[in-house]
């Protein structure tokens, strides 16, 4: 065998090249594995991040907690109470609608919502928000 170290280096260089080609062309992107969490956790985290700096995702149990989640309209809608944790805790409501099996925030988070908006939602949701005292009639 002539100059084996060179041949071996070329061979392993070829392997690395094949791996890089497979990674970029065949696989195309990194795989994202999301951790299991209680229902609505991810969606609320996303909406809180979007309302904040957008660059950090709040964590359930550390930055916020969810309570009193109620599912309505055959679980196609959900209303949940979000309590942000920290020095200045705040509690608000969010209304979410399930689309293709994943919930999306439809209203909120907020403490009260205008009657004109709430009354355009399905009757169950509207009634529930009225019962919660989360509906106001604009004064002007």
């Amino acid at each position, binding site marked *: *065998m002539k100059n084996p170290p060179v041949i071996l280096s070329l061979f392993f260089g070829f392997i690395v090249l094949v791996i890089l080609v497979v990674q970029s062309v065949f696989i195309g992107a990194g795989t994202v594995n999301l951790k299991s969490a209680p229902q609505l956790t991810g969606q609320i985290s996303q909406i809180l991040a979007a309302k904040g700096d957008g660059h950090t995702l709040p964590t359930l149990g550390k930055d916020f907690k969810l309570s009193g989640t109620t599912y309505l309209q055959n679980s196609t809608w959900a209303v949940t109470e979000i309590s942000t944790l920290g020095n200045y805790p*705040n509690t608000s409501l969010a209304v979410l609608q399930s689309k293709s099996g994943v919930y999306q925030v439809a209203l909120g988070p907020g403490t009260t919502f205008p009657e004109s908006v709430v009354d355009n939602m399905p009757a169950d949701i509207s009634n529930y928000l009225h019962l919660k005292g989360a509906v106001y009639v604009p004064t002007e």
Partner: protein
Amino acid sequence: MYPQNSVRRVNWWAMSIVIGLVFLGLYIFYAYRVVQGTGLLTITTSDLHATITISGNKTTAAIIGTGNTKVRLKPGSYLIVAGNQGMQASQVVTVSKGNKADIKLQLVQPAVIPSPDTVSYDNVQTLLDYGLNPAQVANVKQVFFQYKTSTKTISIDSSSVKQEPHNPAGNDPFKLDFNATLDGTTVKAVVVYSSFDDIQMQIYDPSSGALLYSGSSVPTGEGT
């Protein structure tokens, strides 16, 4: 001795090549499994600085990139949200095995629904300094909002905040007075409280002393 060493050296080269080929084969098998078991999602946004996040059904959320990105995902439905400086866009996307999906997100300013959270407050810290707790301050904001839902800014006059005398031996509630300016109009507020959450609040015209509004907090979840 020399020929034996030469054979050993050749064997080492051969073994290295075999190991390399086995590793390559395993990697290609792994890549095949990944491609067959996942879908490729390509996301483009109208803002190259937008942070892109993803969540699924009963999962946490994760940041997956900025601007434009590609990810491989297990089959299922996912909520993709892109946001930057208050602009947002979101879309639910369904990913299936071995397929590709492309989505384009156009970031827009979300419609702002007036609520106590959308009002801008100045010097609200003063109320905390005078003994109200964060829940009571939130309720003060709520009552101000009930009084005038179109209010955009509320400025509390720190120098006017005054705790009324309170007899610790009696059952009288605590009282806190202060002036506040609501979009340029000054009012006098009196907060009355005896528990950690609920408050009663009256809003007066400071010049005439006329009662403009009287409201109380409705803690979320207890209904009316």
